[in-house]
């Protein structure tokens, strides 16, 4: 069955989403700026330089308060008003397409817009709060897009430009890639994500376009284990670690070469829990004591396009990226890994007991 308008199979229509071609106002992620700042910065370069997209990078937007909201610190009214301020900045800058780096933020912005859609009286109240606190007014975004959406949209165009495919240099076979979609990307509002919650293709589609193979495994759609307050409080951090361990054990038999995630939190947990599991249980999930390298969608695209791994911040991963670089045949300078902004060679970080580092 197809729709007359575009010949898209009708059943799949609900799994499509609108992703604007150009002109975006960009909001950054708190978590990513801290732990994977290269991913945050290279997205801007990819969009502006490689894709020629007009992107407004505003230094005055704040956190969306998403983490604070989901740990029950920040009231819903406050979160909505802070989000409204971001929309006000977008409006003042002359934009109507809103590009979000973080998946928690993406879920919250969608939740707020949904509440306003169903309860105009709440939107009105928020407008009053915002005006009282800041004197600002706003238009709602016409198009709300996550960073992984836009990479997905232009995956074929990027694939035409890539220098390194997701293919083993040694065997010529596609690399085995685990894709992990952050829960708040499409589990709350499936219609807001490419492929919805049941058939999310926002990452696997990009991976395939870049030559990689996608692994289907048990627990593929399970949460990374963040758990918000469960992680932030040391007393309940076992929740997060146990859930992460379950994911690694489920993917282990498929011998993944790479994990790709679209959520800064998920990237962090897949990267860091491999270190913790190696220290606590003596287990590693890659080959010969290595971990499974973990990339964000931006890092993946940039690496394939031929950006220097250290320029995109891959030295800040605890789980070493080098096994992937070697498999892909990426040319890199091992001696430049720990150079600083000034060009100074910084003293290397301490090596974990078991998990290999370079």
């Amino acid at each position, binding site marked *: 069955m197809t729709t007359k308008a575009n010949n898209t199979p009708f059943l799949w229509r609900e799994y499509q989403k609108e992703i604007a071609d150009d002109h975006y106002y960009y909001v950054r992620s708190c978590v990513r700026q801290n732990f994977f*700042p*290269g991913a945050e910065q290279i997205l801007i370069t990819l969009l502006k330089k490689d894709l020629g997209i007009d992107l407004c990078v505003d230094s005055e937007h704040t956190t969306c308060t998403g983490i604070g909201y989901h740990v029950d*610190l920040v009231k819903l009214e406050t979160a909505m008003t802070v989000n409204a301020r971001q929309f006000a900045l977008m409006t003042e800058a002359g934009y109507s397409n809103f590009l979000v780096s973080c998946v928690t933020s993406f879920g919250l912005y969608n939740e707020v817009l949904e509440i306003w859609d169903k309860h105009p009286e709440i939107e009105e109240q928020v407008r009053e709060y915002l005006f009282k606190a800041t004197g600002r007014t706003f238009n709602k975004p016409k198009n709300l897009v996550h960073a992984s959406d836009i990479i997905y949209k232009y995956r074929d165009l990027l694939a035409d430009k890539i220098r390194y495919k997701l293919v083993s240099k040694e065997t010529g076979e596609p690399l085995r890639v685990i894709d992990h979609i952050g829960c708040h990307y499409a589990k709350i509002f*499936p219609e807001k994500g490419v492929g919805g919650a049941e058939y999310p293709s926002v990452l696997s589609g990009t991976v395939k376009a870049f030559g990689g193979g996608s692994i289907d495994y048990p627990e593929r759609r399970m949460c990374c284990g963040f758990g918000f307050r469960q992680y932030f409080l040391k007393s309940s951090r076992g929740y997060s670690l146990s859930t992460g361990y379950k994911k690694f054990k489920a993917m282990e038999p498929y011998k993944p070469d790479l994990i790709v995630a679209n959520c800064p939190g998920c990237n962090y947990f897949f990267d860091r829990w491999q270190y*913790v599991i190696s220290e606590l249980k003596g287990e590693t999930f890659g080959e010969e004591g290595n971990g499974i390298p973990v990339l964000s969608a931006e890092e993946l695209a940039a690496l394939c396009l031929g950006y220097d791994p250290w320029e995109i911040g891959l030295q800040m991963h605890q789980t070493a990226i080098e096994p992937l670089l070697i498999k892909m045949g990426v040319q890199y300078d091992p001696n430049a890994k720990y150079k600083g902004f000034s060009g100074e060679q910084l003293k290397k970080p301490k090596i974990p007991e078991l998990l290999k580092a370079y």
Partner: protein
Amino acid sequence: MEKLFDRLKKDVRFQHGLTSCINCGTCTAICPAASIYDYDPREIADQLQVDDETILEKLLKGDTIWYCGQCMSCKTRCPRDNAPGLLILALRNLSIETGYYMHSPRGRQMYALKKLIGETILAKGYCVHADGVDTNLFPELGPIWDWVKKNSEEVYNQFGNSYNRRGSGVLRKLSDETMHELNEIFAVTGTTQRFNQFEEDAAEQAEKTGIDIDESIWNDYFRNNYENPDYDDKSQ
């Protein structure tokens, strides 16, 4: 006094989180928290279908509502479009507003979260900022984080060259005007008041239990609250 249920029903998250639960248990089957804790989202939804003040008060005072990890997998799978994860947000909000959260060691951990995240938001404009995160608080950050912290200027300035300074790169310093607006929003919408409530309630609990507390983050009460929520229960 207004009934607890009437207050809960005013919360938009309750209105959209519960339509009609058929007790199928799909939410519990898929819930990461249910596989870790004695936690059952199906039971929560079922309990809220009965307009019973006693049951609701018990939920608001108990540990159960604090176990959810907010992944919202329950929302996706529910065949009746319920969202126990949203109900939890509404319940926690009411538990805080009524002060019942102080009856649960896990509820009382709002204090530690306020210190860790709330103060960072109001001081820096970010939920998390490298300056307040170290491997004592979060050992899993690993040796790479110790390296980042030791060389923070050299590392972060590679990505936009505005670490803790004005500019548009990562971890830029937000302007005084922006921070003022953010703080005003928190004040106008009631979260500042909520933060003060967490401080006052924690100070009272610390006094009751004889645990030292002050304005610094690493006070004894914070450490116990953050690492061992049952500690101040045992001290009583």
